[in-house]
């Protein structure tokens, strides 16, 4: 029996694309009849940087300019307020019980939420201009995330499929598979679970999956995972994925690989170590 999710927490900050995260978190909370909690993180690294005597920032609008602590904190307050309003609007749309808090600390999800929470965070930073995005520091700090983390890159869409890549069968895999199944039911998506690449053990893996998801009314298929990253990516595209589920022990969940994967995919990623 896996631990049930009792709350959806959305991680917000001043540099990430927060709209997909808020939308996804609100929809999941609505489907599961759970409360929605927003946490706006004031990035202490940026505050630290602003404290350096030579700190500067370059913007498209004004070019090179000073970066002060006051300046950063003003922006944090403004973005926090904007995030609060967006969260309130989303909660109102789905008639959710909601709460909001502002914390100061590192831009990482490790400290967010409790054991039974699903954390949703933006997978992308806001672009500089139309195209260039600095990689989100969240992606390089998922190694310490011990609870389910949904990296939202796109707005919630129903249908399509959810692709879960599970290299091993353990409690964490079981838990993330359970959450993936719940999301698949909520979104009306098919669930494809890719297991060990070894064809000999696929039947056993399939039986394990079926057993775990017994009772869920969904379209389920299991298959052997492609061993090559390119083939894996191609498979995800073929399946018209809305969500890719990664179990933390896989190579694809390593921070650098994860960053590349998120960059290439046009869908959200659910991760649990």
């Amino acid at each position, binding site marked *: 029996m896996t631990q049930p999710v009792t709350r959806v927490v959305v991680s917000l900050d*001043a*540099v990430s694309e927060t709209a997909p995260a808020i939308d996804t978190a609100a929809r999941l909370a609505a489907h599961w009849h759970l409360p929605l909690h927003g946490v706006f993180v004031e990035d202490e*690294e*940026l505050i*630290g*940087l602003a*404290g*350096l*005597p*030579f*700190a*500067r*920032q*370059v*913007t*498209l*609008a004004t*070019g*090179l300019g000073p*970066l002060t602590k006051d300046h*950063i904190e003003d*922006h*944090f307050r*403004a*973005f926090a307020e904007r995030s609060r309003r967006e969260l309130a*609007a989303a909660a109102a749309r789905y008639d959710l019980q909601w709460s909001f808090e502002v914390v100061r600390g590192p831009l990482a999800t490790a400290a967010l939420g409790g054991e039974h929470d699903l954390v949703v965070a933006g997978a992308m*930073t*806001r672009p*500089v*201009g*139309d*195209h*260039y995005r*600095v990689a989100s*520091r969240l992606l390089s700090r998922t190694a310490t995330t011990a609870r389910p983390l949904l990296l939202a890159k796109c*707005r919630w869409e129903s249908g399509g499929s959810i692709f879960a890549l599970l290299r091993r069968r353990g409690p964490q895999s079981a838990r993330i598979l359970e959450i993936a199944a719940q999301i698949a039911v909520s979104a009306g998506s098919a669930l494809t679970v890719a297991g060990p690449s070894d064809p000999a053990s696929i039947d056993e893996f399939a039986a394990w999956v079926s057993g775990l998801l017994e009772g869920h009314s969904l379209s389920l298929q299991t298959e052997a995972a492609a061993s090559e990253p390119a083939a894996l990516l191609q498979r995800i595209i073929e399946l018209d994925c809305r969500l890719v589920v990664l179990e933390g022990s896989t190579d694809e969940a390593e921070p650098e690989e994860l960053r590349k994967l998120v960059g290439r995919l046009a869908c959200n990623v659910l991760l649990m170590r």
Partner: protein
Amino acid sequence: LAATEPSRSQREPSSGGVGAPAGEPGRPLPAALLYRRCDPADLPFEMVSELEEPSAPIGQDRAVDAVEFAVQIRHKGYNIYALGPSGTGKHSIIEDLLRRRAERAPTPPDWCYVNNFVDPAKPRNLRLPSGRASGLREAMRRLVGELRAALPAAFERDDYRARREVLDQQFRARSEQAFGELQRRGEQRGIAMLRTPMGLALAPRRDSKVLTPEMFEALPEAERERIQHELEEVQGELEAVMQKVPQWEREHREAVRALSRETTGAAIALMMNELRTGYRDLPDVALYLDAVERDIKENADDFLPPAQPREGLSSAPGFEDAITEARFRRYQVNVIVDNGEQRGAPVIYEDNPTHQTLVGRVEHIARFGTLVTDFTLLTPGALHRANGGYLVLDAQRLLTGYFGWASLKRALNAGEIRLESLEQLLSLASTVSLQPEPILLDVKVIMLGPPLLYYLLSTLDDDFKELFKIAADFDDRLERTPETTLIYARFIAAVVRRKKLLPVDRSAVARAIEHLSRVAGDADRLSTGLRGIVDLLQEADQVAAGSGKQMVTAAEVQGAIDAQFRRGDRVYRRLQEEIGRRTIRIESHGEAIGQVNGLSVISLGGLAFGHPSRITASIRLGRGEVVDIEREVELGGPLHSKGVLILSGFLGGRFGKTRPLSLNASLVFEQSYSGVEGDSASAAELFALLSALADSPINQSFAVTGSVDQHGRIQAIGGVNEKIEGFFDACHITGFTGQQGVLIPASNINHLMLRHDVVAAAAAERFRIFPIETVDHGLSLLTGLPAGEPDAEGNYPLGTLNHRIAARLDAFAAKAAELARSVAAAEARK
């Protein structure tokens, strides 16, 4: 059919003037001269249903010629003012004439307003051959509908998506390459690139962590300087890259737009070419379609589904529909004149001619709390609808309608219709509104109105003379001949058919003809008041239907005439009643010095009736002045005062050559409490004055009407029938004596169309009508004494009235002289 009704001159001997009947001097008029009958037996039909309708308007040749002339001239300013009394059929005659001409005229073009893609505040107009504007409107509607399906499909196709992906990738790669290289160089030097809320910043790193100020301060100074130096170097490079970003983005957007234009152009080319095919013969439409194509290519995004619903607004009812509708309004065609169903030129009657109903309106609609407008909300006015044809307007309504006259003149002067709101015209609103391209105006305007208005406009409004050069003067009467009688019978036949009335026989026609003469106030004329005859026929039809008859005869027509009078005669009956009760004192028998029964006409609403009044005169010693008491108290009008002053002239001319007129006289309408106008009582006033001077009584059985000139000739007056009937009714109420009657000017005999009971009384010699030509003639009748003719020395024979007057004046003169001498002596004694 030949009409055979004889004229009065044929029936009666004439004693003076060509065709002017007259009674014998000193004798009352025979009954035959009191009423010109129309004998049904003389009418060449039994029922009007046998008759054809008249082929031309009745008795309006002058006006018809004027209209025919004006409609043939297409030069500027030859618009028409149709003047004439109300009820003469101006409207129906004009409209009938215009429609007959309009049927043969070419059908004018259609007009549309379309979006001006360069300046939407100035909508363009398009002129298309009749019936083709609605086709263009439908074609544009279909085009937009097809594009809404075709363009999203074109942008969904693999070729577009692939090309777009390549473009995006190229530009993304350029950014990533520049920033990526910068990031790598930075990382090699321990510098990280961080996203800040507003842009990018560079931070020194140690062990994947940004140095805090404390850590930085703890470093050796040389290290701090090195970090700072390197940071500044990379910062310079970052700034250089950031400066290039806007240019890259601009290039990307332009490349995407070019791709979009190319994709759109390919997608719409076939549709646009098909559309153009139908309008190759219309260069303006072709130019418009070119502009449409350019606009679609530039704004292809409007045809694509929105990338994502608008947060917070997507659930508003009708919001998306309203946004979509607003996006495509600019491709609509606003057909303001559609002559597709029109055959020939239009004839438009605008019954409420104001600025807006003539030149059109700029309407507004409420959209999300604001009032907005565009070319689709331009609505046409009567000038648009009548363009290429005829516009008929009521002059009084036009002049009282809000800015109607000013706007009409402006349009006619400019030769174009400028569609603008009244607020703009009066500079009352400072908000930006539309300035639609003016539409060329080619219209013939016909104003219908009373003569007075025509004369006033001609005198006071210079524009009017320039713009309304043609007057179509409608007559209110025409000569009564067998031919015109028959034309009227045919008109009655037409009314019976159109109004679906009961069958009308010839006796009814004859009675109607007699009534028309009475309305015209002339036995030899017929009123052209067509509305009156139509009303009379309808009411006679109702009388017949009410009594269960299947046919309208003279009795029903008479019933309708009587009912018309009865409906309006309350005041008349009240006056007659008060005469009977002697509250209003009218003497209809006996004699009185210096008193005579005068006659006036009172018009109330649609009814005119005669009313007798006692006119009295008093004389005294004085300096030859005749005082008009009515004038002194400002109850007498100028014409009445003129009549009284003429009396002084008459007295001076006849009696003042050999003696001073040493008298003053006062004249008054007794029991008159309202204004008196006209000179028709001047003869009666003179008779009262002469009676007082001669000290000879006047027979009160008579009433008198007529004006008089300075030489004592009696002149014609109006309302003779009503005046005679008024005294007749007064005598009826006070009691007939067999001696009563009325003295009328001989020149009014032709106007007599008296009531049947009056004519019957005259035939029975119970009531008499005397025509008089001179004052002496009337004076003899009234006093029973000869007037007397002067000898060579100007003296009148003894026993005559004039002799008595002269003797009285001599006595006044002697007395005056004696008084003057006494005064002079008294002065001398002083």
